[in-house]
């Protein structure tokens, strides 16, 4: 069976730097950090956190920009997904005609539903021992497939709706599901991506496994520090990334501009440890993606690493990249130093940033990387803004639960 070629025709973003792609691109080019202290908000409720930092959306969320009938079933995470998707659909020029057809689907994930809504629900149940006063729609705000279901409702999509949930690999895995759906001809267009909201309870989960940054609470913009000698963990952020995937034939028939072509994807699982990534597992996923694309390591011109700033995770990822690509053969950077870790959104948000970098002919460096840590040496780390044209790049995400996901994309 011959597979359909898949292209990207639209991109939308909500990042800690604001709503839309433009604020993200501007901030990355300027080398800014979105990390701020959340201690004044969090300490009252969770007194023993060690990480008081986060990367929240840096502007108020104008919830009333979303019609009430749509908004009532959305928690914050689904609102972020909705705003990113609105931008992506506009760029792809996907309107009522396509949305009401039987050839469009959704594959959109998140780590979890709205954590603020979960807190509201369980506070009522456990503290007040009553459900009276809770909104009728609260479950729709925190169910695991809240993003995909709310997008389907908001945009009237009535075909294949998937909601892969694999923590920090959610959006790349969702994009992978979308790719396979189009390749197999089951839909022509897929609204893909992921979202997550910043909440103290999410940061607390990283704190519990000693994976949250704790030594820079007085210097928020100095962490996370991907690949750096002094890295000490992640900082949670929030956002949403929406990618409109489409068969090449469909895009041509509609006269839609193809921004990039999907050349390969892979997803694998560690299968041995919930939180400890291993080089071998990452290597296998990188190689599967290369096999899927029919490309050699030398064909990849940039790697947008997952690298979140954890001691073990960054080291294992760096070693895997060294094994697959050889020493200093491909430029590598991580955007977590700017964005924090936007969790389930990170793959799609960072993919969106890569597409801007490819179009603009530049590579954004790894913010806060001053001296590579042990095991992280031997890569062509991008440590300053690099003006260089490139076409083909790799984006990777590695998640709790051992789930890996890798994408290979060629800008057009």
């Amino acid at each position, binding site marked *: 069976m011959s597979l359909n070629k898949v292209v990207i025709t639209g991109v939308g973003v909500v990042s800690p730097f604001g709503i839309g792609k433009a604020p993200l691109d501007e901030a990355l080019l300027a080398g800014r950090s979105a990390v701020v202290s959340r201690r004044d908000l969090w300490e009252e409720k969770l007194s023993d956190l060690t990480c008081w930092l986060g990367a929240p959306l840096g502007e108020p969320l104008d919830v*009333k920009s979303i019609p*009430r*009938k749509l908004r*009532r079933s959305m928690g914050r995470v689904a609102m972020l997904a909705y705003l990113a998707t609105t931008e992506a659909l506009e760029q792809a020029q996907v309107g009522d005609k396509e949305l009401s057809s039987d050839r469009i689907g959704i594959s959109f994930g998140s780590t979890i539903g709205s954590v603020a809504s979960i807190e509201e629900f369980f506070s009522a149940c456990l503290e007040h021992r009553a459900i*009276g*006063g*809770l*909104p*009728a*729609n609260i479950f729709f705000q925190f169910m695991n497939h809240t993003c995909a279901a709310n997008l389907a409702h908001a945009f009237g999509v009535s075909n294949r709706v998937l909601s892969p949930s694999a923590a920090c690999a959610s959006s790349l895995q969702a994009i992978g599901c979308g790719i396979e759906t189009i390749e197999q001809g089951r839909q022509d267009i897929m609204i893909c991506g992921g979202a997550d909201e910043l909440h103290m309870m999410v940061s607390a989960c990283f704190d519990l496994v000693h994976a949250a940054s704790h030594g820079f609470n007085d210097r928020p913009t100095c962490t996370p520090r991907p690949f750096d000698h002094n890295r000490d963990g992640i900082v949670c952020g929030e956002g949403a990334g929406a990618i409109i995937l489409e068969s090449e034939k469909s895009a041509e028939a509609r006269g839609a501009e193809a921004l990039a072509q999907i050349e390969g994807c892979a997803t694998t699982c560690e299968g041995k440890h919930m939180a400890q990534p291993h080089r071998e597992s990452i290597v296998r996923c990188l190689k599967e993606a290369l096999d899927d694309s029919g490309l050699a390591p030398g064909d990849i011109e940039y790697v947008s690493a997952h690298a979140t700033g954890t001691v073990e995770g960054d080291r294992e990822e760096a070693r895997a990249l060294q094994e697959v690509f050889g020493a200093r053969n491909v430029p590598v950077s991580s955007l977590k130093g700017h964005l924090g870790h936007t969790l389930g959104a990170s793959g799609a948000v960072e993919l969106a940033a890569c597409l801007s970098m490819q179009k603009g002919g530049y590579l954004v460096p790894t913010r806060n990387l001053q001296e590579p840590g042990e095991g992280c040496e031997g890569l062509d780390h991008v440590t300053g803004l690099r003006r260089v044209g490139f076409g083909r790049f790799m984006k990777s995400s590695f998640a709790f639960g051992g789930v890996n996901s890798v994408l290979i994309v060629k800008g057009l």
Partner: protein
Amino acid sequence: MAGHLVIEGVHGILVEEFELDRADLTPQADLYNDLGLDSLDTVDLAVAMEKQFGFKVDRAVDEKVIREMRTLEEVYAFVRDKVGPGGEQ
């Protein structure tokens, strides 16, 4: 409770929480066809009215009434029935 206070209270909820236009809030307005509410909205409307007027919805008794309410006039009547003339349940 005075009739005009019931009407003002209900309208306040519909304007603030349901983002409706005050000009559309006539006694004969149909909750579903004219104001665009649905069954989930009427559940939230009942919760909001509990808070506003200080009564408690008894699902065994009130659920059917709430489900069958169609006009704003019927909403006012429901509230009047719950709070009683002196504001007591």
